[in-house]
Each structure stands twice: as C-alpha cells, then as structure tokens.
C-alpha cells in the first residue's frame, strides 16, 4: 500500500519519493503537498465518474518561471506527470482533476501578477493566477476606461485558464482565445518561448499584434499539453459612454420558433448591429437560473413543479414557463456605441424582430426588466461584470452533478433546431431534462447543454455517464463535434475528430514532450 494519495502510472513509490524530495528542495515543503487534505480541492470532480480515476498524487505551487523550468527538469528525470491548472475551477468541464490518476497538480494560482494594463491600446498581460475580478478591480482602481470579456464564473476564474480552454464570454470579445494576444510558455525541455512579437528582444508590440513572423503557434498551446503557459496577453474593450450600452431580452413563446429566431439574429450579428456573443436560452435553463427563491422568498426547484418520475412532461414545462414568466426561448443581447449609434441600431434590431414575430415577441430592456434576476446577471455579463448567478441552476435538480455537453453548430436556422431535437431525444431517453443555451459567435453557435444529475446516487451517475457517451456518439454521427469536454471523455472526444488529427497531436507531443510529463491525457493526447 502506497503512502501517497495516488501514484502516477509507471512511477515506483521509491522514484516518486525521490522526486518529491527534489521538488521540496526546490520550493520547500509548504509548496509541495502530498497530504490528502491539501489535495481535496483537486479531487472535486463533477463529471459522472468516480473521483478515484482522477485522484492526484501531489500539488505544487510555483511562484516563478525559473521554478517551473526547474520543475520540468525534475519531472523529466523521474517521469512524474504535471497537470497544470490556473485558478482550477473549470465548472462543467471537470473542475481541477487531472485526466489520469496520480498526476501532480501544478497549481499556478500563486503566479498572480497583473504585469501590465495598457489603457492607450486596451490590452493586459497577466499571469495564470490572475482572476477576471482582479483585472476588474485593477481597472477600477486606476480609473481606466476599459472592460474585459468574462465567462459565466467570472468572479472566481481567470482569463489564462479560460482562454487556454477556448472558453466563451458574452461581450463583443466573447471568443476569448481569439482576443488573446501573445503567450509566454515553458516547454517540457525547460525552454521559455514568447510567441508572436514576444520573441523579438525589447518588442513593444507583443500584445498589440498576434502574428509575428512564420507559423502562428499560440493555438497549439490551447486545450493541449505541449507547454506550460506562464503569461498571456488579452485585448480589452473600451467601456461605452453613458447611454452607450443597451442590453435587452426578447421572449418567444414557442419552442418551434427557434429557427426563425436564429434566422432573424444572424444578419444582425454578421453586420455587427448585434456585436456581442449573444445567447438564446431554453425555458428550463432560464427557470433553473431563477431557482434560488420564488417571488415569496421560498426556495424553488424542479421539485416545486413536478414530483413524478422521469423527465418533465410538456404540460409541466408549459406551467413552468407561465409561472416563471419566461420564454420558451429567451434571447439576450446588447448594443454598444455612442448613444446615437445605439438608438439607431436599436431601431434596426427591434424592428427586425417586430417585423418577423409581431406580437409573438416580448421585448424587454432595462426599463421593463426592473430587478429581474436573470436580466440583471445577463446585463452584467454582457458588460464584462462579475456574476456567479448562473450557478443557481445547481439547485434545480440537486445532488451536485453537472456536466456540460457542448457541441458546436453552424449558425443556420435548420441546424439550431436539429440539435435541440437530437439532444432532447437522447437526454429524455436516459431520464434527463433538456436545459441549454446557444452562445452565438461569429458564424457558429456553441450549444451548451447542462446535464444535471444527482452525484449522490450511483445509479443516476452511471446513467449520466451513458447519456453523455450517447450524446457524443449521436452528435458525431450527425457531423457535430464538441468544443470542449471533461477529463472522463477527452479520449472519446478526440476520436470523433479522426485518426489523422490524432496523429498530428501525437507527433507534436513526441517532438515537444518526449517523456510525456506534461498533462498526459489532456484532450486525449498522451504517449503512454
């Protein structure tokens, strides 16, 4: 029986002990932890498998690039795999747990410097432990007229981790990796690479232009295990002037209206009259985000409406829509600019929907929304604010299980509804309801489906696994890949993109990390 929490595959206890001794000689005992209590936060896993499969062996907290260079040296010597995290939340996609049992978590939360915020050109350069909230505080403290695009758990997660996993936000810069600019990466051999213009000594444009010269390599460090990103740049938006921000909600009464909703949105999106990554939310997710309290301050959840077995029947969903005063679809978007630009764009936007839907669309702006909880958190998110309100939906079904299945669709009317039907069929077959939103990007839609289940019930957890597995297979069969997944499904998800892509990933891994020490199994990439 090992004296450690877990051991990496292929590493003996004796070698692991020696490695830990060397790591401790480098950073001290406090920053190299192997006790179970210290590893708790990395064992939390929300995907429907046992924690045992993803149990880490240790956690380390480097503070400098030099320390990370020394760490990879030791890791190569003893073949101890390093699972790098930044702030380690990764809600919906597996939390901080490593892809395989026994990896050492390299927790970069201790590297939390905001290195530079450039007000003139609107960008920042930060370390991995910096959160969106830290940046917001910095901007406020220095009275800068800037804002950063945030994902839903903005207050407690950071731009480096989110963008490296190609996360999405809700502002015009909502495709977060697209609006990143320049990285510093420690490679497995200890080299430190600065991408783009960062390679030129004394460059002043590292965060001003993405490309540099020669092949663009930043992309290979996202959703990958080819290096440890220690700094990353992000473009920031100018905050609109007073009267220059108009968030709005449009409610639609029927599920079948989705294709027409998308058909009306996309010309406005392509012309940038609606410039942000906007969302179309289904009724149950919208209701679930409200379910802290009802209007009388009483707790509200799925049980409030239905105590029967199986999925929610259509008539109950209709009752929820009516009781919560929500749409079968709720469309949240915003217009940005000068007050004059906003007023003019609003004429086109509201006019387009009125022309298409007449009195079948209910249009709500801040004036009508008043203190509506969901409108308020969407309003904040579309302006780069911090809100965790979305996670209220953990109360909907209860039991603490939540895993996001996230296929991507081309933003075409027909495809939007096709995906809804496929997802609903598979989810219902396994006894789960359909809760989802479409985040509408430039020409695609991220279909974020929340598979909520009760982790305290082994049968339900096993059913959730089978459901996710079938969703993956059925969507792939229909030509749809997913944009991101949790550690339990990384291998299977990688398979859906074909053997040639897997071969490229494998060859890159062999070239850049021949000892397979960096996060083996991430996105299905491993030499083991």
């Amino acid at each position: 029986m090992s004296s450690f929490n877990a051991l990496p595959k292929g590493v003996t206890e004796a070698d692991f002990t020696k490695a830990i001794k060397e790591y401790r000689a480098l950073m001290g005992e406090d920053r190299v932890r192997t006790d179970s209590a210290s590893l708790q936060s990395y064992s939390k896993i929300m995907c429907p498998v046992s924690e045992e499969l993803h149990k880490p062996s240790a956690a380390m907290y480097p503070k400098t690039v030099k320390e990370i260079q020394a760490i990879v040296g030791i890791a190569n010597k003893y073949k101890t795999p390093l699972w790098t995290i930044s702030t380690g939340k990764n809600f919906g996609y597996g939390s901080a747990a490593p892809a395989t049992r026994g990896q050492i978590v390299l927790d970069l939360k201790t590297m939390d410097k905001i290195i530079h915020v450039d007000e003139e050109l609107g960008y920042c350069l930060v370390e991995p432990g910096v959160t969106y909230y830290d940046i917001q505080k910095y901007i406020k403290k220095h009275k800068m007229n800037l804002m950063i695009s945030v994902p839903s758990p903005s207050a407690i997660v950071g731009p480096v981790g989110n963008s490296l996993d190609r996360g999405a936000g809700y502002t015009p810069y909502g495709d977060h990796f697209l609006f990143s600019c320049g990285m510093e990466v420690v490679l497995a051999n200890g080299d430190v690479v600065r991408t783009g213009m960062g390679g030129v000594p004394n460059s002043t444009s590292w965060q001003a232009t993405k490309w540099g010269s020669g092949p663009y390599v930043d992309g290979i460090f996202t959703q990958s295990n080819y290096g440890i990103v220690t700094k990353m740049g992000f473009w920031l938006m100018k905050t609109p002037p007073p009267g220059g921000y108009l968030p709005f909600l449009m409610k639609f009464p029927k599920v079948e209206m989705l294709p027409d909703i998308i058909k009306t949105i996309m010309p406005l999106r392509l012309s940038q009259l609606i410039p942000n990554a906007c969302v179309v939310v289904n009724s149950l997710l919208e209701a679930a985000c409200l379910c802290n309290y009802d209007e009388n301050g009483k707790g509200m959840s799925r049980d409030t409406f239905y105590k029967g077995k199986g999925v929610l029947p259509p008539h109950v969903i209709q009752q929820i829509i009516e009781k919560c005063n929500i749409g079968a679809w709720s469309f949240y978007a915003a217009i940005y600019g000068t007050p004059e630009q906003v007023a003019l764009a609003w004429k086109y936007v509201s006019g387009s929907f009125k022309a298409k839907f007449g009195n079948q669309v209910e249009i709500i702006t801040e004036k009508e929304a008043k203190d509506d909880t969901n409108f308020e958190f969407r309003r904040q998110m579309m302006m780069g604010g911090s809100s965790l309100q979305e996670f209220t939906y953990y109360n909907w079904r209860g039991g603490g299980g939540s895993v996001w299945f996230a296929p991507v669709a081309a933003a075409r009317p027909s495809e939007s509804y096709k995906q809804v039907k496929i997802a609903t069929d598979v989810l219902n077959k396994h006894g789960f309801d359909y809760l989802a939103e479409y985040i509408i990007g430039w020409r695609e839609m991220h279909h974020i489906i929340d598979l909520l289940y009760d982790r305290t019930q082994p049968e339900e957890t096993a059913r959730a696994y089978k459901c996710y597995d079938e969703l993956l297979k059925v969507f792939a069969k229909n030509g749809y890949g997913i944009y991101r997944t949790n550690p339990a499904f990384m291998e299977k998800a990688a398979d859906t993109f074909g053997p040639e892509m897997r071969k490229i990933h494998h060859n890159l891994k062999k070239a850049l990390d021949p000892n397979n020490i960096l996060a083996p199994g991430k996105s299905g990439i491993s030499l083991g």
Partner: protein
Amino acid sequence: MMNTSRRAFFKTFLSAGAALVVSGSGNTTKPAEAAVHEQIKGVCLFVPTLGKASDFVELMNTSAPGNWTVHPLEGTLTDRYFIAKSLYEEAKGRANTFVGAVDPGSFAVVQAAIFDSGGTFHYITYEERNRITFSAQL
C-alpha cells in the same frame, strides 16, 4: 417551531461538527461529548430557505453548546462567495468550528471560497438533494 425531522437533521450536523473539534480531521464523525461542547467557538453559515437564524442559534446551543455565531448567506451567488470567503478568513484564529447548511448552488460558491482561502473540509454531506451540510477545517 421546527419540525422533528429538521431538528434531527440539525442535531446530527451539529454533533458531527463538534466531534470534529476533537478529532481535528477525518471523514467520519463521532458523537459529541459534553466536555468538547464547551470548547466550541463556532461559525455557522446557512441559507434562509433552510431555516431561520433563531432556529439555528437555539439548536446549536442545545445540541452543541458553545459560543456560536450564525450568518445567513443572502444576496446573489457572487455576494455569497465573497461573504463566505470573508467569514472563513475571519474565523481563522478566532474560531475552531466552521460549519454550514446550504443549497447546492450556494455550496458551489462556498466550497470555491474555502478552497480559494486554502481551506479543506472535514466532511461534506448531502442530507437531501438540495441540502448540504459541511464542516471546514480551520
């Protein structure tokens, strides 16, 4: 007045919290002991949907006597994250027991707050699908 099942729930949860003051760690709980109760300097978080502050105070002082302060977790989940983080930080060095009875949405942010403050948990128990009790190490 609280119903019987809720009383039983709080009794279990508080006894478990008190037991952990003795053991200092571990995932299993033991019956509380009178001698231990006197040592408790406890902080308890709760969400208002699970009971009133007066209920918590009454039951804590009955089931696990000590110096308890109770804090409702209210407002948005963002507020709750920062409230929990601040209370946990304040409790370090001042209290020896940090427990809570919360819903899953609140628990997600409370857990993040405690982990972000370098904390760990003695136990996390789903009493029901929508009711979680926990005790965090101080």
